[in-house]
């Protein structure tokens, strides 16, 4: 007890009745919501809490840290061996390990429950335990199962292991150095620790609505289930996707809510267009209302005062839902002295193989360190404590997986030897830590190719990167004559252009001898590029070099290339931004590295669409032959990265190399012809050219510009039979991945809600298990390791991903045709599913992401198109469709 008297921090568990009054019991409501809250420290029974604390204190005596008295005149502090920030799977596992090893620890958690991220999953969510091959090494048990069960089990374990946790302890700053860190909490308390483990995940902090009177009205920063709220006047603040979706959910007529959404800007720029359309439709139907250009000013009971463009106003308000975005965790982490690999949004902290950050004594684990799967988090929690305790023997838990990967290779080396060989032998890996290399290799493959075997094939879709670990490779640079090859030596890489631009492979590459290659999926490489700037630099440079070679012919000399490269720079453009403006002057050449652009020309006062230019081509060359006069505007159709080649450098190259000059002139000639043709059309058949132009604009706006293969419906042929949907459901577990009727239409061309198989798929970006891939035929598909987190659904700009559970099996076609059994072909109606499953609504929902996979593996290709009786459904790629030759077609 004496110990406890000194220990302010310790007493501050959520329910501690003897705290200083600042820490009270969680509000009754949130207690109810805490499905799996740890019992002891939320129990209002003071004895239970004291008992627990006493035991914990006794144990701590054996730990690293000794209680320390703080400076005189202040409250007494004690210094912990380790302070663990964040009680997600990573932090909790670390705390459990510390408790077991008797390390004097404190687990600081911002909220009043453990593992906030998992706590916030949808009720009954099936938590998945991927990757299956990975052995779990943690004091916390973990199997796939319902969210509630997982949380409950952890709560019990941490209680049993006497994990010392302090709730409502948001750490706002960390100062000091190894041996003496001061962690300042939001409530002003300071905690001292010798080491710090940061495990705060990536969720960040929701931005608060900081206006006077905020305490007088209930403000929610998250909405679990809109159906929980009925008959209220609700003001939703924030016109992003989250705010709009919440508002729409709350405005369902049977809930009886009155919903008003406030948007600060005049437009909804941050939301998906589909969501904005739904919002506008809902207002037209009188289901809800919204205001733009308004700002909340203050709150009073049942009332919100707002500032509009026309002066102040008040709104009735029982509850505020504030969806103002989040401040990424990164900002806080950086303020603790942890540096990140780069300024990139996707970058992770720089860590040693012991998880130690750039500030000695501060360790980073879990999602924040770039390991978003629960199993990884749990293992790292264990490992980091062992490392802190100086355990050097510990082998990484992923060792068996790597042993298996490298096991099949000739030459019987150990995993460490192979990794060392990778690091020293392959240029891009030179600066990596063994942690990074291991992580990288977990997702990558080592493959043996025999001499002459094709590794990648020209015109295949593919975005993986290959590195030559042993042997060499031959690139067939000339499609017409495969005998002309360029050899890539050991240590070199290839496949980078497909990776960066998302386009088809430009050349076939074969193993020049029996070789060992590393094949890394796009996601692993992108992650590595985000964590290791050196890798990014190197890959960027190789890409630029090879793109220039590919475009201007492989015969350019290395010296020429080097001089040019030295003058190039990389520039990014947002969708809609101009690379080149008509009428201005300039000589720069833009090589489109990723994304695509459209060229437009002002004819008779109207922007007329000239052409669509995909990644891997260049624009801006025409000015060279026209005194630097830009004859057309070039705009980014989607986010674009371009290699900018200064006009002088290019000019010099052309002067030197008549062959290149010739090929550039040819291109200029053909582009001039197209432009001239369109201009002529414009004057003779103005409306045809207009039509073509506006159809092209429409399609680009609908994402066809970044598509590799998209479904379009010609509405002059569509009879609305929905056979396409039926066929999709029949070939895909009874769930249609396309919604024909939804989506936009222009000039009888309809773009249904269906995957565009984007060149640079946004959906892949944040998938924790990397379950989204691109196949050689270009299809973007989701494999069975999907954990159902919904990140891809949020990230896809076209709203084509659904989270679904496959329906039960239906009786076959014959029994339906002859005896009317079952619902027939297509996606079964919900009523049938319910009936078939019986009242077992309590069944676990194993929802996974589903989307179009272009009928991957189905003989005959996409079923939607094959099943269309009239030929209305077609699949197109932008090059096919956005051509001048499409002019007739588009207007047919």
């Amino acid at each position: 007890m004496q110990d406890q008297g000194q220990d302010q921090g310790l007493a501050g568990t959520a329910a501690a009745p003897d705290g200083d009054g600042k820490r009270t019991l969680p509000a009754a409501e949130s207690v109810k919501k805490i499905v799996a809250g740890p019992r002891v420290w939320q129990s209002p029974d003071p004895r239970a809490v004291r008992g627990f604390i006493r035991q914990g204190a006794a144990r701590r005596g054996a730990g690293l840290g000794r209680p320390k008295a703080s400076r005189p005149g202040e409250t007494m502090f004690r210094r912990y061996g380790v302070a663990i920030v964040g009680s997600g799977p990573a932090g909790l596992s670390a705390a459990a390990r510390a408790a077991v090893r008797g390390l004097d620890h404190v687990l600081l958690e911002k909220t009043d429950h453990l593992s906030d991220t998992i706590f916030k999953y949808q009720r009954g969510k099936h938590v998945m335990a991927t990757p299956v091959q990975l052995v779990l090494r943690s004091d916390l048990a973990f199997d796939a199962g319902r969210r509630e069960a997982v949380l409950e089990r952890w709560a019990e374990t941490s209680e049993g292991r006497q994990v010392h946790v302090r709730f409502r302890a948001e750490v706002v700053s960390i100062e000091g150095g190894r041996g003496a860190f001061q962690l300042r909490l939001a409530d002003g308390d300071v905690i001292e620790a010798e080491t710090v483990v940061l495990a705060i995940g990536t969720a960040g902090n929701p931005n608060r609505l900081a206006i006077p009177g905020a305490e007088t009205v209930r403000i929610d920063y998250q909405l679990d289930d809109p159906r929980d709220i009925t008959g209220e006047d609700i003001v939703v603040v924030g016109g992003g996707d989250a705010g709009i979706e919440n508002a729409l959910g709350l405005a369902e007529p049977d809930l009886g809510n009155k919903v008003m959404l406030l948007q600060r800007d005049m437009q909804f720029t941050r939301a998906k267009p589909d969501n904005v359309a739904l919002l506008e439709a809902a207002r037209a139907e009188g289901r809800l209302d919204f205001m733009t250009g308004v700002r909340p000013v203050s709150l009073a009971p049942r009332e919100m005062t707002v500032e509009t463009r026309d002066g102040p106003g008040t709104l009735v308000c029982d509850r505020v839902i504030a969806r103002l975005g989040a401040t990424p965790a990164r900002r806080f982490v950086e303020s603790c002295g942890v540096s990140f690999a780069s300024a990139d949004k996707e970058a992770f902290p720089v860590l040693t193989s012991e998880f130690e950050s750039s500030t000695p004594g501060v360790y980073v684990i879990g999602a924040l360190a770039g390991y978003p799967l629960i199993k990884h988090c749990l293992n790292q929690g264990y490992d980091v404590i062992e490392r802190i305790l100086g355990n050097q023997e510990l082998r990484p838990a992923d060792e068996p997986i790597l042993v298996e990967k490298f096991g099949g290779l000739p030459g019987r080396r150990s995993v460490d030897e192979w990794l060392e060989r990778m690091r020293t032998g392959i240029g891009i890996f030179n600066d990596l830590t063994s942690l990074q290399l291991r992580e990288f290799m977990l997702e990558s493959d080592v493959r043996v190719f025999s001499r002459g075997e094709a590794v990648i094939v020209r015109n295949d879709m593919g975005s993986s990167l290959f590195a030559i670990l042993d042997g060499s490779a031959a690139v067939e640079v000339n499609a017409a004559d495969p005998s002309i090859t360029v050899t890539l030596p050991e240590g070199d890489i290839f496949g980078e252009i497909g990776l960066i631009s998302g386009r088809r492979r430009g050349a076939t590459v074969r193993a020049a001898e029996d070789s060992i290659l590393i094949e890394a999926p796009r996601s692993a490489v992108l992650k590595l590029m985000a964590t290791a700037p050196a890798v990014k630099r190197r890959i960027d440079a190789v890409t630029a070099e090879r793109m220039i070679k590919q475009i201007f012919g492989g015969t350019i000399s290395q010296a020429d290339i080097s001089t040019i490269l030295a003058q190039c720079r990389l520039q990014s453009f947002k969708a809609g931004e101009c690379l080149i403006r008509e009428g201005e002057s300039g000589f720069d050449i833009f090589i489109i590295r990723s994304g695509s652009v459209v060229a437009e020309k002002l004819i008779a006062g109207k922007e007329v669409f000239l052409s669509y230019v995909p990644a891997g081509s260049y624009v801006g060359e025409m000015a060279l032959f026209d005194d630097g006069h830009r004859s057309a505007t070039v705009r980014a159709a989607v986010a674009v990265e371009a290699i900018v080649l200064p006009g002088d450098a290019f000019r010099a190259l052309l002067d030197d190399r008549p062959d290149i000059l010739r090929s550039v002139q040819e291109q200029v000639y053909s582009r001039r012809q197209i432009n001239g043709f369109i201009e002529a059309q414009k004057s003779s058949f103005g409306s045809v050219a207009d039509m073509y132009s506006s159809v092209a604009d429409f399609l680009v706006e609908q994402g066809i510009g970044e598509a590799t293969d998209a479904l379009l419906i010609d509405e002059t042929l569509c009879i609305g039979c929905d056979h396409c949907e039926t066929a999709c459901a029949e070939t895909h577990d009874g769930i249609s991945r396309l919604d024909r009727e939804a989506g936009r239409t222009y000039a009888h061309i309809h773009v249904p809600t269906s995957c565009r198989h984007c060149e640079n798929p946004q959906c892949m970006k944040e998938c924790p298990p990397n379950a989204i891939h691109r196949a050689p035929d270009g299809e973007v598909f989701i494999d069975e390791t999907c954990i159902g987190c919904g990140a891809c659904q949020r990230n896809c700009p076209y709203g084509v991903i659904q989270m679904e559970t496959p329906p039960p099996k239906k009786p076959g076609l014959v029994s339906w045709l002859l005896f009317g059994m079952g619902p027939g072909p297509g996606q079964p109606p919900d009523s049938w599913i319910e009936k078939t499953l019986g009242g077992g609504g309590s069944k676990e929902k194993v929802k996974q992401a589903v989307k179009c996979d272009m009928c991957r593996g189905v003989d005959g290709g996409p079923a939607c198109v094959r099943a269309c009786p009239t030929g209305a459904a077609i699949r197109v790629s932008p090059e096919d469709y956005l051509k001048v030759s499409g002019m007739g077609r588009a207007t047919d």
Partner: protein
Amino acid sequence: MVRVDHTTRRRSAVHESFLKHGGFRYLKLALLLTAVCLGIYAGSSASPVRNGGSAAGYFLGILATVLVVWLAFLGIRKRAITGGRWSLKAWTSAHVYLGVAVLAISLLHSGFQFGLNLHTLTIVLLGLTVLSGVIGAVAYSVIPRRMSDNRGQLSGEQMIEAVQAVDAPLRQAARRLSEADALLVSSAIEDTEIVRGVFGRILAPDRNCPTARALAMMRRQSVRAGPLDGIEDKDEDDSERAVRERVTLLLERRSAMLGRARRHARYRALLEVWLYAHTPLTFGLLGALVGHVVSVFYMW
């Protein structure tokens, strides 16, 4: 560790309607087939009569039957979504053209000998099937464009929601009308069927529509009340007038939305209704055909 086979992309859809499929491939095939059959017919000796009893007749009869069975198989094909390189568009294209050819072939087979018998019933049923099919094919090529124009960017469901969206403001506005008028409006809201049965949808989508009736009534009354500036002062009248105007406006809006939803329903019905003849006729035809074949073998 062997790399799986590379597949080359199949661009499986050329932008071409079912009628034009493959550059009118099946139209050409059907014409060729008909021409050959004509040749056979013309070349066969007419003894005793040119009909199904002759060798040429048997040939043509069997050919026609094979085609009919294949045509009827479309009903299965379109529902059995299997892998493979088939396309329903190609099937429809072939179906349409060979379907018409079948009529010609059967006529040649019959030697144009008709009477009041099962044989003639068979060919009549065949003729009706083909006729309904032709109507369907015409519907398929004419209606979609209109349906698309009518639908804007809305789905059927959204159209119905658009009608219902007017209900709440209409109800509210009608509260300030006289009781009789309010009743009229509420009947417009409650009793209007948005869509009716298939035939109702096609033939009389708007008949006896309570919304239309209410609208007509409101308009008639405002005509009777005379133009607005004729009113002396009377805020009260004025506001009543404003209410009427608003109700009329809302009813007009509702009517317009109803019109669109009904047109949509009508087009959809038109695209389907011919199948109500085509499919049963197919079954009738298959039955009669069996009867015909059995009868010529056993009862002749």
